[in-house]
Protein backbone atom coordinates (compact mmCIF):
# COMPACT_ATOMS: atom_id res chain seq x y z
CA UNK A 1 0.00 0.00 0.00
CA UNK A 2 2.86 2.31 0.79
CA UNK A 3 4.11 1.87 -2.76
CA UNK A 4 0.71 2.86 -4.16
CA UNK A 5 0.72 6.07 -2.15
CA UNK A 6 4.26 6.77 -3.29
CA UNK A 7 3.35 6.18 -6.95
CA UNK A 8 0.30 8.35 -6.57
CA UNK A 9 2.39 11.15 -5.13
CA UNK A 10 4.96 10.92 -7.94
CA UNK A 11 2.16 11.01 -10.51
CA UNK A 12 0.76 14.11 -8.87
CA UNK A 13 4.18 15.72 -9.02
CA UNK A 14 4.47 14.77 -12.67
CA UNK A 15 1.13 16.42 -13.40
CA UNK A 16 2.36 19.66 -11.87
CA UNK A 17 5.44 19.83 -14.06
CA UNK A 18 5.66 22.48 -16.76
CA UNK A 19 6.08 19.91 -19.50
CA UNK A 20 2.95 17.94 -18.51
CA UNK A 21 0.89 21.09 -18.20
CA UNK A 22 2.12 22.34 -21.56
CA UNK A 23 0.84 19.12 -23.17
CA UNK A 24 -2.52 18.68 -21.43
CA UNK A 25 -3.30 22.29 -20.45
CA UNK A 26 -5.61 21.24 -17.65
CA UNK A 27 -5.54 19.89 -14.14
CA UNK A 28 -6.57 16.38 -13.17
CA UNK A 29 -10.04 15.42 -14.46
CA UNK A 30 -11.81 15.71 -11.13
CA UNK A 31 -14.37 18.37 -11.88
CA UNK A 32 -16.92 18.33 -14.70
CA UNK A 33 -15.09 21.29 -16.21
CA UNK A 34 -11.74 19.50 -16.44
CA UNK A 35 -13.51 16.31 -17.54
CA UNK A 36 -15.08 18.25 -20.40
CA UNK A 37 -11.66 19.67 -21.22
CA UNK A 38 -10.27 16.13 -21.28
CA UNK A 39 -12.63 15.31 -24.16
CA UNK A 40 -12.69 18.38 -26.31
CA UNK A 41 -9.10 19.32 -25.62
CA UNK A 42 -7.97 16.06 -27.18
CA UNK A 43 -7.68 15.59 -30.94
CA UNK A 44 -8.76 11.97 -30.80
CA UNK A 45 -11.63 12.42 -28.35
CA UNK A 46 -13.01 15.79 -29.37
CA UNK A 47 -15.37 14.26 -31.90
CA UNK A 48 -17.13 12.37 -29.11
CA UNK A 49 -19.88 13.96 -27.02
CA UNK A 50 -18.77 15.44 -23.68
CA UNK A 51 -21.81 13.92 -21.98
CA UNK A 52 -23.75 10.78 -22.81
CA UNK A 53 -27.03 9.31 -21.60
CA UNK A 54 -26.50 6.68 -18.97
CA UNK A 55 -28.91 4.35 -20.79
CA UNK A 56 -26.86 4.44 -23.99
CA UNK A 57 -23.94 2.93 -22.06
CA UNK A 58 -25.77 -0.23 -21.05
CA UNK A 59 -24.46 -3.32 -22.81
CA UNK A 60 -27.91 -4.19 -24.16
CA UNK A 61 -28.25 -0.81 -25.83
CA UNK A 62 -25.39 -1.37 -28.26
CA UNK A 63 -23.46 -4.54 -27.32
CA UNK A 64 -20.59 -2.12 -28.05
CA UNK A 65 -20.70 -3.42 -31.62
CA UNK A 66 -19.67 -0.10 -33.16
CA UNK A 67 -16.75 0.19 -30.77
CA UNK A 68 -15.79 -3.41 -31.40
CA UNK A 69 -15.83 -2.80 -35.17
CA UNK A 70 -13.56 0.19 -34.65
CA UNK A 71 -11.21 -1.71 -32.32
CA UNK A 72 -10.96 -4.49 -34.88
CA UNK A 73 -10.05 -1.87 -37.47
CA UNK A 74 -7.28 -0.63 -35.12
CA UNK A 75 -6.01 -4.18 -34.58
CA UNK A 76 -6.08 -4.76 -38.35
CA UNK A 77 -4.17 -1.55 -39.01
CA UNK A 78 -1.45 -2.42 -36.50
CA UNK A 79 -1.05 -6.07 -37.58
CA UNK A 80 -1.39 -4.99 -41.22
CA UNK A 81 1.50 -2.55 -40.93
CA UNK A 82 3.65 -5.26 -39.35
CA UNK A 83 2.71 -7.70 -42.12
CA UNK A 84 3.70 -5.12 -44.74
CA UNK A 85 7.30 -5.34 -43.48
CA UNK A 86 7.38 -8.97 -44.62
CA UNK A 87 5.35 -8.75 -47.81
CA UNK A 88 6.19 -8.22 -51.48
CA UNK A 89 3.20 -7.63 -53.76
CA UNK A 90 4.74 -9.72 -56.52
CA UNK A 91 4.14 -13.09 -58.17
CA UNK A 92 5.19 -15.54 -56.78
CA UNK A 93 7.13 -13.75 -53.98
CA UNK A 94 3.87 -13.01 -52.15
CA UNK A 95 3.28 -16.71 -51.59
CA UNK A 96 6.88 -17.25 -50.50
CA UNK A 97 6.40 -14.47 -47.96
CA UNK A 98 3.47 -16.42 -46.51
CA UNK A 99 5.76 -19.44 -46.14
CA UNK A 100 8.38 -17.19 -44.56
CA UNK A 101 5.79 -15.96 -42.07
CA UNK A 102 5.17 -19.56 -41.12
CA UNK A 103 8.73 -20.91 -41.04
CA UNK A 104 11.10 -17.95 -40.69
CA UNK A 105 9.55 -14.88 -39.06
CA UNK A 106 9.29 -14.93 -35.27
CA UNK A 107 5.60 -15.12 -34.33
CA UNK A 108 4.78 -14.79 -38.03
CA UNK A 109 2.00 -17.37 -37.81
CA UNK A 110 0.48 -15.57 -34.84
CA UNK A 111 0.66 -12.24 -36.66
CA UNK A 112 -1.08 -13.60 -39.74
CA UNK A 113 -3.67 -15.47 -37.66
CA UNK A 114 -4.47 -12.30 -35.75
CA UNK A 115 -4.89 -10.28 -38.94
CA UNK A 116 -7.03 -12.89 -40.66
CA UNK A 117 -9.18 -13.52 -37.60
CA UNK A 118 -9.72 -9.83 -36.91
CA UNK A 119 -10.66 -9.33 -40.57
CA UNK A 120 -13.36 -12.02 -40.44
CA UNK A 121 -14.52 -10.72 -37.07
CA UNK A 122 -14.78 -7.18 -38.43
CA UNK A 123 -17.07 -8.25 -41.27
CA UNK A 124 -19.29 -10.03 -38.74
CA UNK A 125 -19.17 -7.12 -36.27
CA UNK A 126 -20.03 -4.49 -38.88
CA UNK A 127 -22.99 -6.52 -40.22
CA UNK A 128 -24.21 -7.26 -36.70
CA UNK A 129 -23.80 -3.58 -35.77
CA UNK A 130 -25.95 -2.55 -38.73
CA UNK A 131 -28.73 -5.05 -37.98
CA UNK A 132 -28.69 -4.12 -34.30
CA UNK A 133 -28.95 -0.41 -35.09
CA UNK A 134 -31.84 -1.19 -37.42
CA UNK A 135 -33.76 -3.17 -34.80
CA UNK A 136 -33.15 -0.44 -32.20
CA UNK A 137 -34.51 2.15 -34.63
CA UNK A 138 -31.19 3.99 -34.56
CA UNK A 139 -31.52 4.98 -38.22
CA UNK A 140 -34.53 7.20 -37.59
CA UNK A 141 -34.35 11.01 -37.63
CA UNK A 142 -32.09 12.76 -36.81
CA UNK A 143 -29.71 9.87 -37.55
CA UNK A 144 -30.58 9.26 -41.22
CA UNK A 145 -27.33 10.51 -42.69
CA UNK A 146 -25.18 8.63 -40.21
CA UNK A 147 -26.98 5.43 -41.26
CA UNK A 148 -25.98 6.17 -44.86
CA UNK A 149 -22.36 6.74 -43.79
CA UNK A 150 -22.62 3.40 -41.99
CA UNK A 151 -23.74 1.65 -45.18
CA UNK A 152 -20.67 3.20 -46.84
CA UNK A 153 -18.50 1.79 -44.06
CA UNK A 154 -20.03 -1.65 -44.55
CA UNK A 155 -19.09 -1.55 -48.23
CA UNK A 156 -15.55 -0.33 -47.44
CA UNK A 157 -15.21 -3.15 -44.89
CA UNK A 158 -16.28 -5.73 -47.46
CA UNK A 159 -13.90 -4.33 -50.11
CA UNK A 160 -11.06 -4.21 -47.58
CA UNK A 161 -11.62 -7.84 -46.69
CA UNK A 162 -12.03 -8.83 -50.33
CA UNK A 163 -8.88 -7.08 -51.59
CA UNK A 164 -6.92 -8.61 -48.70
CA UNK A 165 -8.16 -12.05 -49.73
CA UNK A 166 -5.97 -12.06 -52.88
CA UNK A 167 -2.72 -11.04 -51.19
CA UNK A 168 -1.50 -14.49 -49.96
CA UNK A 169 -1.54 -15.60 -53.62
CA UNK A 170 -2.53 -19.17 -52.88
CA UNK A 171 -5.21 -21.24 -54.61
CA UNK A 172 -7.86 -20.06 -52.16
CA UNK A 173 -7.04 -16.41 -52.88
CA UNK A 174 -6.73 -16.75 -56.64
CA UNK A 175 -9.99 -18.58 -57.24
CA UNK A 176 -12.05 -16.59 -54.75
CA UNK A 177 -11.03 -13.40 -56.56
CA UNK A 178 -11.66 -15.09 -59.93
CA UNK A 179 -15.23 -15.94 -58.91
CA UNK A 180 -15.82 -12.43 -57.57
CA UNK A 181 -14.34 -10.42 -60.42
CA UNK A 182 -16.13 -12.56 -63.02
CA UNK A 183 -19.40 -11.26 -61.58
CA UNK A 184 -18.30 -7.69 -62.33
CA UNK A 185 -18.12 -8.44 -66.05
CA UNK A 186 -21.91 -9.01 -66.04
CA UNK A 187 -22.54 -5.33 -65.28
CA UNK A 188 -24.08 -3.94 -68.48
CA UNK A 189 -21.75 -1.83 -70.66
CA UNK A 190 -19.35 -0.86 -67.85
CA UNK A 191 -18.67 -4.39 -66.58
CA UNK A 192 -15.62 -5.28 -68.65
CA UNK A 193 -13.96 -1.83 -68.39
CA UNK A 194 -14.40 -1.87 -64.59
CA UNK A 195 -12.94 -5.36 -64.37
CA UNK A 196 -10.02 -4.30 -66.58
CA UNK A 197 -9.42 -1.25 -64.39
CA UNK A 198 -9.54 -3.32 -61.20
CA UNK A 199 -7.25 -6.10 -62.45
CA UNK A 200 -4.92 -3.99 -64.58
CA UNK A 201 -5.53 -6.47 -67.39
CA UNK A 202 -7.83 -9.28 -68.47
CA UNK A 203 -6.46 -11.91 -66.11
CA UNK A 204 -5.61 -12.04 -62.44
CA UNK A 205 -1.84 -11.70 -62.47
CA UNK A 206 0.96 -9.45 -61.31
CA UNK A 207 -0.94 -6.24 -62.09
CA UNK A 208 -4.05 -7.37 -60.26
CA UNK A 209 -2.00 -8.28 -57.19
CA UNK A 210 -0.34 -4.87 -57.15
CA UNK A 211 -3.65 -3.05 -57.56
CA UNK A 212 -5.36 -5.06 -54.84
CA UNK A 213 -2.33 -4.40 -52.60
CA UNK A 214 -2.53 -0.62 -53.09
CA UNK A 215 -6.31 -0.67 -52.61
CA UNK A 216 -5.96 -2.82 -49.50
CA UNK A 217 -3.10 -0.96 -47.83
CA UNK A 218 -3.65 2.66 -48.87
CA UNK A 219 -6.86 3.69 -50.62
CA UNK A 220 -9.47 1.69 -48.72
CA UNK A 221 -7.94 2.25 -45.25
CA UNK A 222 -7.86 6.00 -45.93
CA UNK A 223 -11.50 5.87 -47.05
CA UNK A 224 -12.34 3.91 -43.90
CA UNK A 225 -10.57 6.39 -41.61
CA UNK A 226 -12.40 9.31 -43.23
CA UNK A 227 -15.81 7.66 -43.00
CA UNK A 228 -15.18 6.48 -39.43
CA UNK A 229 -14.32 10.05 -38.42
CA UNK A 230 -17.54 11.37 -39.95
CA UNK A 231 -19.52 8.47 -38.43
CA UNK A 232 -18.27 9.19 -34.87
CA UNK A 233 -18.51 12.96 -35.21
CA UNK A 234 -22.08 12.74 -36.45
CA UNK A 235 -23.13 10.78 -33.35
CA UNK A 236 -22.31 13.88 -31.33
CA UNK A 237 -23.80 16.30 -33.87
CA UNK A 238 -27.01 14.26 -34.07
CA UNK A 239 -27.43 14.44 -30.31
CA UNK A 240 -26.03 11.15 -29.08
CA UNK A 241 -27.11 7.54 -29.51
CA UNK A 242 -30.77 6.62 -29.76
CA UNK A 243 -32.16 5.47 -26.44
CA UNK A 244 -35.55 4.08 -25.69
CA UNK A 245 -37.82 4.95 -22.84
CA UNK A 246 -38.65 1.34 -22.23
CA UNK A 247 -36.43 -1.71 -22.13
CA UNK A 248 -38.17 -4.32 -24.17
Amino acid at each position, binding site marked *: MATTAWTHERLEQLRQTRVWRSIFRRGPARTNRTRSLAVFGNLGLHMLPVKV*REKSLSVRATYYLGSISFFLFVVLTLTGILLMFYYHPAVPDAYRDMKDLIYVVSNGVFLRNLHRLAAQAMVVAVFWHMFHVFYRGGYKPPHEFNWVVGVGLLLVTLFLSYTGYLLPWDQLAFWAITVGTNIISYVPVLGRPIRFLLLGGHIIGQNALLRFYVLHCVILPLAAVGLIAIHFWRIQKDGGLTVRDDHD
Partner: protein
Amino acid sequence: MVFITRKMSAKVKEETGPQLMSFPHVILREAIAFQLLAIVLVVLSLFWDAPLEQLANPLLTPNPAKAPWYFLGLQELLHYFPPLVAGVLLPTLVVLGLVVIPYFDINIEGEPLWAHRSPRRLQIYLGVFAGLFVLLALYDAWTVLVPTVLVGALGLLPYFNLTSNSRFLKFLGSRPLPWWVMTWFIAVALTLTAVGTFFRGPGWSWVWPWS
Protein backbone atom coordinates in the same frame (compact mmCIF):
# COMPACT_ATOMS: atom_id res chain seq x y z
CA MET B 1 -32.34 17.63 -28.56
CA VAL B 2 -35.07 16.03 -30.63
CA PHE B 3 -35.64 12.33 -30.54
CA ILE B 4 -38.33 10.36 -32.21
CA THR B 5 -37.80 6.70 -31.58
CA ARG B 6 -39.89 3.62 -31.74
CA LYS B 7 -42.80 3.47 -29.33
CA MET B 8 -42.60 7.15 -28.60
CA SER B 9 -45.12 9.69 -29.64
CA ALA B 10 -43.98 12.09 -32.32
CA LYS B 11 -43.80 14.90 -29.80
CA VAL B 12 -40.40 16.19 -28.84
CA LYS B 13 -38.69 14.60 -25.89
CA GLU B 14 -36.18 16.79 -24.16
CA GLU B 15 -33.99 14.19 -22.46
CA THR B 16 -34.10 10.50 -21.77
CA GLY B 17 -32.68 9.75 -18.36
CA PRO B 18 -29.61 10.99 -16.54
CA GLN B 19 -26.35 11.81 -18.28
CA LEU B 20 -22.74 10.93 -17.51
CA MET B 21 -19.48 12.61 -18.41
CA SER B 22 -17.79 10.85 -21.36
CA PHE B 23 -14.52 11.13 -19.48
CA PRO B 24 -14.09 8.88 -17.60
CA HIS B 25 -17.33 6.86 -17.99
CA VAL B 26 -17.27 6.16 -21.74
CA ILE B 27 -13.48 6.00 -22.03
CA LEU B 28 -13.25 3.45 -19.24
CA ARG B 29 -15.95 1.18 -20.68
CA GLU B 30 -14.41 1.38 -24.15
CA ALA B 31 -11.00 0.51 -22.71
CA ILE B 32 -12.45 -2.56 -20.97
CA ALA B 33 -14.26 -3.61 -24.18
CA PHE B 34 -11.00 -3.23 -26.12
CA GLN B 35 -9.07 -5.29 -23.59
CA LEU B 36 -11.63 -8.10 -23.59
CA LEU B 37 -11.62 -8.13 -27.38
CA ALA B 38 -7.81 -8.18 -27.48
CA ILE B 39 -7.72 -11.14 -25.08
CA VAL B 40 -10.27 -13.11 -27.13
CA LEU B 41 -8.43 -12.35 -30.39
CA VAL B 42 -5.03 -13.34 -29.01
CA VAL B 43 -6.29 -16.59 -27.47
CA LEU B 44 -8.11 -17.59 -30.67
CA SER B 45 -5.09 -16.70 -32.81
CA LEU B 46 -2.95 -19.03 -30.73
CA PHE B 47 -5.15 -22.02 -31.47
CA TRP B 48 -6.66 -21.30 -34.89
CA ASP B 49 -4.46 -21.15 -37.99
CA ALA B 50 -5.20 -18.95 -40.99
CA PRO B 51 -5.65 -21.17 -44.06
CA LEU B 52 -2.93 -21.32 -46.70
CA GLU B 53 -3.24 -23.55 -49.73
CA GLN B 54 -0.88 -24.31 -52.61
CA LEU B 55 0.64 -21.57 -54.74
CA ALA B 56 -1.95 -19.97 -57.03
CA ASN B 57 -2.27 -21.93 -60.27
CA PRO B 58 -4.52 -20.52 -63.02
CA LEU B 59 -4.48 -23.91 -64.78
CA LEU B 60 -5.82 -25.86 -61.79
CA THR B 61 -9.43 -24.87 -61.07
CA PRO B 62 -10.69 -26.18 -57.74
CA ASN B 63 -14.21 -27.61 -57.81
CA PRO B 64 -16.09 -25.78 -56.50
CA ALA B 65 -14.25 -22.45 -56.61
CA LYS B 66 -15.73 -20.45 -53.77
CA ALA B 67 -15.74 -16.72 -53.06
CA PRO B 68 -15.04 -15.44 -49.51
CA TRP B 69 -17.81 -16.56 -47.14
CA TYR B 70 -19.59 -13.18 -47.05
CA PHE B 71 -20.11 -13.38 -50.83
CA LEU B 72 -21.26 -17.01 -50.81
CA GLY B 73 -24.87 -15.87 -50.47
CA LEU B 74 -24.43 -14.08 -53.80
CA GLN B 75 -22.74 -17.12 -55.32
CA GLU B 76 -25.66 -19.24 -54.17
CA LEU B 77 -28.03 -16.80 -55.89
CA LEU B 78 -25.91 -17.04 -59.06
CA HIS B 79 -26.66 -20.74 -59.04
CA TYR B 80 -30.38 -20.03 -59.53
CA PHE B 81 -30.71 -16.73 -61.36
CA PRO B 82 -29.08 -15.20 -64.45
CA PRO B 83 -25.80 -13.41 -63.60
CA LEU B 84 -27.24 -9.99 -64.41
CA VAL B 85 -29.96 -10.51 -61.82
CA ALA B 86 -28.05 -12.33 -59.07
CA GLY B 87 -24.66 -10.68 -59.50
CA VAL B 88 -25.58 -7.12 -60.39
CA LEU B 89 -29.25 -6.24 -59.95
CA LEU B 90 -29.94 -7.82 -56.54
CA PRO B 91 -26.77 -6.55 -54.77
CA THR B 92 -27.38 -3.06 -56.17
CA LEU B 93 -30.98 -3.17 -54.97
CA VAL B 94 -29.88 -4.37 -51.52
CA VAL B 95 -27.38 -1.51 -51.14
CA LEU B 96 -29.89 1.06 -52.44
CA GLY B 97 -32.54 -0.42 -50.16
CA LEU B 98 -30.24 -0.07 -47.15
CA VAL B 99 -29.38 3.53 -48.05
CA VAL B 100 -33.01 4.67 -48.39
CA ILE B 101 -34.28 2.93 -45.22
CA PRO B 102 -34.21 6.07 -43.04
CA TYR B 103 -35.82 8.19 -45.75
CA PHE B 104 -38.66 5.85 -46.67
CA ASP B 105 -39.60 4.59 -43.23
CA ILE B 106 -42.83 6.53 -42.89
CA ASN B 107 -44.02 4.24 -40.10
CA ILE B 108 -41.94 6.22 -37.62
CA GLU B 109 -43.92 5.25 -34.54
CA GLY B 110 -43.45 1.56 -35.20
CA GLU B 111 -47.10 0.62 -35.57
CA PRO B 112 -47.53 -3.18 -35.63
CA LEU B 113 -48.07 -4.73 -39.05
CA TRP B 114 -51.60 -5.89 -38.23
CA ALA B 115 -52.52 -3.01 -35.92
CA HIS B 116 -55.84 -2.40 -37.67
CA ARG B 117 -56.28 -5.94 -39.00
CA SER B 118 -56.83 -4.28 -42.37
CA PRO B 119 -58.18 -6.81 -44.94
CA ARG B 120 -56.60 -4.76 -47.71
CA ARG B 121 -53.21 -5.05 -46.06
CA LEU B 122 -53.74 -8.79 -45.72
CA GLN B 123 -54.54 -9.03 -49.44
CA ILE B 124 -51.36 -7.15 -50.37
CA TYR B 125 -49.32 -9.31 -47.97
CA LEU B 126 -50.69 -12.54 -49.41
CA GLY B 127 -50.31 -11.22 -52.96
CA VAL B 128 -46.62 -10.35 -52.47
CA PHE B 129 -46.05 -13.66 -50.70
CA ALA B 130 -47.70 -15.68 -53.47
CA GLY B 131 -45.79 -13.74 -56.13
CA LEU B 132 -42.48 -14.42 -54.42
CA PHE B 133 -43.41 -18.08 -53.91
CA VAL B 134 -44.23 -18.64 -57.59
CA LEU B 135 -41.14 -16.74 -58.80
CA LEU B 136 -38.76 -18.61 -56.50
CA ALA B 137 -40.39 -21.97 -57.26
CA LEU B 138 -40.11 -21.28 -61.01
CA TYR B 139 -36.36 -20.81 -60.63
CA ASP B 140 -36.06 -23.79 -58.25
CA ALA B 141 -34.50 -21.39 -55.73
CA TRP B 142 -35.27 -23.61 -52.73
CA THR B 143 -32.68 -22.12 -50.40
CA VAL B 144 -34.39 -18.73 -50.83
CA LEU B 145 -37.87 -20.19 -50.77
CA VAL B 146 -37.59 -22.00 -47.43
CA PRO B 147 -36.63 -18.98 -45.27
CA THR B 148 -39.14 -16.85 -47.21
CA VAL B 149 -41.96 -19.26 -46.41
CA LEU B 150 -40.90 -19.50 -42.76
CA VAL B 151 -40.72 -15.74 -42.17
CA GLY B 152 -43.84 -15.17 -44.28
CA ALA B 153 -45.80 -17.66 -42.17
CA LEU B 154 -44.50 -16.16 -38.92
CA GLY B 155 -45.56 -12.73 -40.14
CA LEU B 156 -49.06 -13.98 -40.84
CA LEU B 157 -49.41 -15.72 -37.47
CA PRO B 158 -50.21 -12.60 -35.36
CA TYR B 159 -53.07 -11.70 -37.72
CA PHE B 160 -55.07 -14.66 -36.47
CA ASN B 161 -53.81 -14.81 -32.91
CA LEU B 162 -54.06 -11.30 -31.54
CA THR B 163 -55.64 -12.40 -28.28
CA SER B 164 -53.09 -15.08 -27.47
CA ASN B 165 -51.20 -14.90 -24.19
CA SER B 166 -48.01 -16.41 -25.59
CA ARG B 167 -45.10 -13.98 -25.13
CA PHE B 168 -43.61 -14.99 -28.46
CA LEU B 169 -46.84 -14.31 -30.33
CA LYS B 170 -47.27 -11.02 -28.53
CA PHE B 171 -43.76 -10.07 -29.57
CA LEU B 172 -44.47 -10.99 -33.19
CA GLY B 173 -47.75 -9.11 -33.07
CA SER B 174 -46.04 -5.91 -31.97
CA ARG B 175 -43.55 -5.83 -34.87
CA PRO B 176 -43.94 -3.21 -37.60
CA LEU B 177 -43.58 -3.83 -41.34
CA PRO B 178 -39.91 -2.68 -41.64
CA TRP B 179 -39.00 -5.18 -38.92
CA TRP B 180 -40.54 -7.99 -40.96
CA VAL B 181 -38.83 -6.94 -44.19
CA MET B 182 -35.42 -6.77 -42.47
CA THR B 183 -35.97 -10.07 -40.66
CA TRP B 184 -36.89 -11.72 -43.95
CA PHE B 185 -33.75 -10.28 -45.57
CA ILE B 186 -31.50 -11.48 -42.73
CA ALA B 187 -33.11 -14.93 -42.72
CA VAL B 188 -32.54 -15.33 -46.46
CA ALA B 189 -28.98 -13.92 -46.30
CA LEU B 190 -28.01 -16.20 -43.40
CA THR B 191 -29.52 -19.27 -45.07
CA LEU B 192 -27.80 -18.58 -48.40
CA THR B 193 -24.44 -17.90 -46.73
CA ALA B 194 -24.66 -21.02 -44.56
CA VAL B 195 -25.70 -23.21 -47.51
CA GLY B 196 -22.97 -21.75 -49.74
CA THR B 197 -20.36 -22.26 -47.05
CA PHE B 198 -21.21 -25.73 -45.71
CA PHE B 199 -23.56 -27.51 -48.10
CA ARG B 200 -22.11 -26.95 -51.54
CA GLY B 201 -19.64 -29.29 -53.21
CA PRO B 202 -18.38 -30.11 -56.72
CA GLY B 203 -20.46 -28.46 -59.44
CA TRP B 204 -22.31 -26.56 -56.71
CA SER B 205 -24.19 -29.76 -55.88
CA TRP B 206 -25.71 -30.30 -52.44
CA VAL B 207 -23.36 -32.08 -50.04
CA TRP B 208 -23.64 -32.74 -46.32
CA PRO B 209 -20.78 -31.17 -44.38
CA TRP B 210 -20.16 -34.42 -42.47
CA SER B 211 -19.99 -36.69 -45.53
